[in-house]
């Protein structure tokens, strides 16, 4: 006699034990500390904070440890925690011109005021596996040379500095400078303003953005981009509580900003000029900032009067599928039981099949 499988709860509890052991691995190997993760896996921590929409390196490191290095799972853990945090207020807009720049490069000008600053980049490392890192002994770290001249305190975007001819579109706030929506508290609605789109992209999945950005370079959008400027460094975060009436600094965060410029043939109301795409992400995340800037530009197609025929130009398509917490959950929900609906489909299919076979027999 058939007996319904019981014991779901027991099985779940046992899966916790198995998972905890699998996460810990060989108990003879020392356990990872959060300081190690934070200090030595900074890109992973940054990505979890970006897509988790929560700036807290300690919690991001904890999430990575708990998720055993599964970035998307760590993002999910951080997001779920974030839900329970009350909102106390909003910061004043960040001023990236006042960034304490550690890296700043431009692909459009040979030299720029302040010079090209490579900073801690892997770009020219030749990607040879470094077997000296295989051990745990402290590596012999050389002292980097200081810049010949320190960078000025304010470092305006090179595009603005070098745009004397007005051939690059100016970056101006939309009419009335409306407060941006807060996508962490309000649903995404369409049409979505550029501020909303950028917010969505900033917390969007890096892989999704990278693929879309790549598609715009391969003919799926009119895109002829140049990396006007990429900068990375620390920016001060300030809040201006209503009762104080002035801004107070509450800390600083690392940001990567990308100003991409694209050819634009002009339209009825706008002269031919370079247009911009913008990327700004938390942490050291150049790949994502660049991809974001390309996708931002391609999503501007309708407002610039370009035909939006490519996937990366369609806001609903791009923005509705950028969130990896949503995407991961829904793709994986297929492993939940669906047997009631499957039963319904099975009996429907039997009916359809009987009709099909009867027709075949009649012929």
């Amino acid at each position, binding site marked *: 006699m058939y007996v319904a499988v019981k*014991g*779901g709860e027991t099985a779940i509890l046992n899966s916790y034990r198995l998972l*905890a052991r699998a996460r810990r691995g060989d108990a003879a190997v020392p356990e990872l500390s959060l300081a190690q993760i934070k200090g030595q896996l900074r890109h992973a921590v940054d990505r979890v904070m970006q897509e988790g929409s929560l700036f807290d390196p300690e919690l991001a490191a904890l999430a990575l440890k708990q998720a055993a290095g599964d970035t998307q799972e760590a993002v999910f853990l951080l997001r779920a925690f974030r839900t*329970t945090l009350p909102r106390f207020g909003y910061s004043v807009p960040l001023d990236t011109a006042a960034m304490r720049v550690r890296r700043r490069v431009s692909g459009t000008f040979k030299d720029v005021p302040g010079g090209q600053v490579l900073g801690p980049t892997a770009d020219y490392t030749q990607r040879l596996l470094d077997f000296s890192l295989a051990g745990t002994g402290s590596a012999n770290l050389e002292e980097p040379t200081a810049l010949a001249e320190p960078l000025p305190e304010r470092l305006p975007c090179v595009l603005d500095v070098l745009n004397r001819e007005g051939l690059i579109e100016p970056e101006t706030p939309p009419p009335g400078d409306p407060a941006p929506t807060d996508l962490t508290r309000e649903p995404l609605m369409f049409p979505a303003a550029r501020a909303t789109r950028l917010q969505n992209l900033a917390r969007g999945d890096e892989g999704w953005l990278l693929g879309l950005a790549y598609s715009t370079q391969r003919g799926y959008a009119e895109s002829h981009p140049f990396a006007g400027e990429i900068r990375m460094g620390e920016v001060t975060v300030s809040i201006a509580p209503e009762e104080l009436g002035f801004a107070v600094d509450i800390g600083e965060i690392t940001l990567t900003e990308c100003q991409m410029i694209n050819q634009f043939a002009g339209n009825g109301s706008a002269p031919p000029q370079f247009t911009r795409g913008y990327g700004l992400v938390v942490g050291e995340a150049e790949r994502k900032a660049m991809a974001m800037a390309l996708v931002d530009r391609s999503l501007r197609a309708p407002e610039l009067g370009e035909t939006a025929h490519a996937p990366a130009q369609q806001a609903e398509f791009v923005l509705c599928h950028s969130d990896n917490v949503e995407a*991961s959950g*829904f793709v994986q929900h297929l492993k*939940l039981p669906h047997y*009631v609906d499957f039963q319904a489909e099975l009996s429907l299919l039997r009916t359809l099949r009987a009709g099909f076979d009867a027709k075949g027999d009649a012929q």
Partner: protein
Amino acid sequence: MKHSTSCKPQTGLHREGGRAATGPYSPYGEEAHSDADKASNWRYNFGYLDENTKRMLRRGLLKAVAIPGYQVPFGSREMPLPYGWGTGGIQLTASLIGRQDVLKVIDQGADDTTNAVNIRRFFGRVCGVDTTEKSADATLIQTRHRIPETPLKAGQIVVFQVPEPEPLRLLEASEVETRKLHAHQEYGLMHVKLYEDIARFGHIATSYDYPVRVNGRYLASPSPIPKFDNPKLHQSPALLLFGAGREKRLYAIPPYTDVDSLAFDDHPFEIQAWDTSCALCGSHDSYLDEIVTDDAGSRMFVCSDTDYCTSRREDAR
């Protein structure tokens, strides 16, 4: 039967000024992570969500009741269960649930499927409320894919988990467009789709998530319940609430509201029927699951509603 909930309310400091809901919350339970518990003094609010989020959901629910079948956008939050696994239903339940509630959670009609167990455990831990498997004893029923066979009662609330709230989505991918179609009550697309089924197969080839018209106005998804359950939506004495977390929409069917499954005069709406009865309780009128019992493909049919089936067998003894 009431489950004993392992995490009962404790008193203590609390962010929202109310009573603390639970002790430190470890996702793996007290038995697995006592060190983490000691290290953390974080206390979650009753029902997990903060009071602002609950108020946002509550305001949305009231508008949903006022406009039956209309999809209210809401600022859905990430929950500690994945999107697509019932986060909409969980958020609705979290905004509804109180200490006096008795909660039942089912998936596929069964209380003991892993996702149902998981969601029930979640609410046991973050609310400490009583839970039950008896449909009749529950004040709140969160469900995925079924409506209980035991008739719903006045005063009960059923929360449906909804993956895709937009019944027109597979016919029109754009939200901007589907909003317009609802605004203009332009549901021709759906009628054409159903009619094409009839032309091709001789009948409508939709067996679950069968679209309904609520109060003669909004076209709505009943969630992926089999169409067998659709008649239970019509003039239900219970309040029916629908939550789609990933898609950030909620909607409602108030009690005693007309709910019509789409049909044509010459092709009336029909529900599934079996030429067998439940092998366990003998019911002729419940939704049956087909169970393969051996490698030779032998099969049996049993009730998908485990509480209904168990109760019938107990009554027969």
